């Protein structure tokens, strides 16, 4: 019996993986060869998707990108035994894209069957929880502090401090919430993880619950991710079935319940207090802090709000030790970062490496340069609120402090490349436009400022008092940065300011 892997990852599906899987099943039936088809996650090299793998005694052999038309020739070439074919790449683990990666959080993504608790256990799953259950709760929190793990959602706040705050609140109803509202353009690590290894997120949330004394968890998932929704619900049901959720989980006498709540298409709900409002069933308007969610969060109770990748990194830390995790990385950026290469890039996808790689290595060694073959003029890092970094700064190291040093931010680790045809004044305008569309409307600098920002840029592009209006735009950006209630209005000016700083030549009257 041959085992064939075809990703069910929605990115792979968007390139025809479902049709390829069906064609493989049909061809196997026609030839009367027994085939076990496993629908794994994506390994994250999207240039090779749909990436079909077969299990052989020499390990898994990769073929890709496979189309339906390739399926018959692949069978004819004996691909079930790893036979030679134009699309063959040899052992998957030896493909240069994967070989140098340091996959801790993404160790299982693309490898295992995401719906299978048995697969999860076989690959070291729930070792972290087992260790955590044998520890004092304060020791679990201490381990997360020692690991140096910082919030991977974008704010990079030390995770252990959040956990300690909730841990130290008096006993009573507490909540673990997972922010899976991955709305930043250029980011898809959360989606890949939820589709490819949802049990690691479930285990991470369970450990968090044990550590701080919370018995209920919610995953706040964006409505734009229907495939991740299905994958999470399947995995949660499997975890309940295997008694890793619910009362007396893993025979420990402890309880943790978990459910998915769907967002409804509001970018602002990725902001943690807005997410809590939405989880409570209200408009996603930002709350004024203090009080911090760790003290007064969901339904007024102490609440952990962590990103998907943050929580999914916890099982590895607990299983392998906080020091082992902290040994990766540089300076105050400890551990690994799942980086997402996106936009106009030849080999886009997911690269998990210890912090400290240079942007240039990522864009050219992994990314292979632009998809269009033209020079990369700039990249935007950290989503729609992140700065544009010009090519002259591509030697910067990708870690929290180095990027802050050049006025950029890492955010959720998404890097969007643009070639030299990009019009940076248009991108600056878009940043303001997006802020206007997505502003929750609670504070004036964001609600009004973003619309005024679009208008001012339009005047500059129309050649109306360009210099005066550029000064006005700079002033407006300053007001929004200083005066907004949350990161949306407070950071939307970053791409605008960076475009003005590095690409001033684009801010001039445009031919009609």
């Amino acid at each position, binding site marked *: 019996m041959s085992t064939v892997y075809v990703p069910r990852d*929605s*990115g792979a*599906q*968007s*390139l025809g993986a479902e049709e390829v899987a069906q064609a493989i099943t049909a061809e196997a039936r026609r030839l009367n060869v027994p085939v076990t088809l496993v629908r794994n996650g994506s390994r994250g090299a*999207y240039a090779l*998707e749909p990436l079909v793998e077969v299990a052989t005694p020499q390990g898994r052999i990769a073929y890709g990108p496979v189309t339906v038309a390739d399926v018959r020739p692949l069978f004819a070439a004996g691909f079930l035994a790893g036979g030679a074919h134009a699309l063959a790449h040899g052992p998957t683990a030896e493909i240069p894209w994967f070989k140098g990666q340091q996959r801790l959080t993404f160790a299982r993504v693309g490898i295992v069957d995401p719906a299978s608790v048995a697969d999860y256990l076989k690959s070291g799953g729930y070792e972290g929880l087992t260790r955590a259950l044998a520890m004092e709760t304060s020791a679990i929190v201490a381990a997360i502090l020692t690991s140096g793990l910082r919030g991977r959602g974008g704010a990079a706040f030390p995770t252990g401090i959040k956990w300690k705050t909730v841990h130290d609140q008096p006993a009573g109803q507490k909540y673990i919430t997972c922010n899976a509202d*991955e*709305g*930043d*353009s*250029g*980011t*898809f690590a*959360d*989606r890949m993880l939820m589709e490819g290894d949802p049990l690691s997120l479930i285990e991470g949330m369970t450990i968090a619950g044990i550590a701080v004394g919370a018995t209920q968890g919610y995953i706040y998932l964006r*409505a*734009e991710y229907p495939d991740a929704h299905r994958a999470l619900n399947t995995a949660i049901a499997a975890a309940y079935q295997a008694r890793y959720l619910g009362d007396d989980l893993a025979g420990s006498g402890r309880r943790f319940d978990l459910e998915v*709540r*769907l*967002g*409804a*298409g*509001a*970018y602002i709900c990725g902001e943690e207090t807005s997410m809590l409002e*939405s*989880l*409570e*069933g*209200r408009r*996603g308007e930002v709350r004024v802090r203090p009080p911090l969610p760790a003290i007064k969060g969901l*339904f007024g109770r102490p609440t952990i709000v962590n990103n998907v990748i943050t929580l999914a990194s916890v099982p590895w830390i607990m299983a392998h030790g906080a020091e082992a995790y902290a040994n990766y990385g540089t300076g105050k950026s400890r551990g690994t970062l799942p980086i*997402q290469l*996106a*936009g*106009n*890039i030849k080999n*886009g996808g*997911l690269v998990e490496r210890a912090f400290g790689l240079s942007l240039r290595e990522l864009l050219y060694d992994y990314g292979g340069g632009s*998809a269009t073959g033209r020079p990369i003029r700039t990249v935007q890092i950290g989503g*729609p609120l992140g700065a544009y970094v010009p090519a002259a700064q591509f030697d910067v190291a990708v870690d929290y402090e180095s990027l802050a040093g050049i006025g950029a931010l890492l955010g959720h680790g*998404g890097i*969007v*490349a*643009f070639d030299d045809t*990009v019009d940076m004044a*248009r*991108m600056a*305008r*878009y940043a303001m*436009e*997006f802020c*206007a*569309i*997505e502003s*929750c*409307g609670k504070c004036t600098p964001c609600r009004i400022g973003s*619309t005024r920002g*679009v208008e001012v840029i*339009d005047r500059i592009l129309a050649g109306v008092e360009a210099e005066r209006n550029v000064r006005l735009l700079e002033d407006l950006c300053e007001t929004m940065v200083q005066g907004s209630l949350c990161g949306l209005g407070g950071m939307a000016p970053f791409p605008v300011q960076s475009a003005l700083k590095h690409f001033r030549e684009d801010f001039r009257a445009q031919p009609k």
Partner: protein
Amino acid sequence: MIAQGKDIGQAAARRGSRATAPDKPGDPAGTYTCCLMKTLDAAQEAAVRRIVAELKGRPGPLIEVLHAIQQDLGYVPEAAVAPVAEGLNLSRAEVHGVVTFYHHFRRAPAGAHTVSLCQAEACQSMGALALAEHARRRLGVGFHETTPDGRFTLEPIYCLGNCACSPAAMIDGKLHGRLTPARFDELIAAQAKSP
């Protein structure tokens, strides 16, 4: 770039009237015509009452209820606001406020097929604006509009998490990547044949 110019105007109007009222197509003041609007038909009414009864015991149930209504009826009718408010012990203003806050909730039925084109940065870097222009011409409608034959509704969407395979789109919940105008036309032609 005409596209963006149009969109910002729509964005401003979006909170209040991004969908037109079902019985007064094109009425930009759709928000305020609630008292003139049809009541729920018997099946809709039964569905709304069943959903509210089913979910009202859950913590913070309103958004769950609205998702279930939209799943069932295809949109959230204005006339559903009152029974939902009553069932959840909320004011009608609170329910209306939530329905209109979230882009995902429709206040009028969509076409038979919903085509959502990603317009965010990663997709822009790979020609999403040109693709949107092509889609408008191909379907003959703008964003937030439905073709006159009721077949297609065209929507902008801001990130589908498929940014390594830009430009991306979602058609009836299925994700598509590395779209070209030609591939877009194929997908539309395939949908046009299905019910």
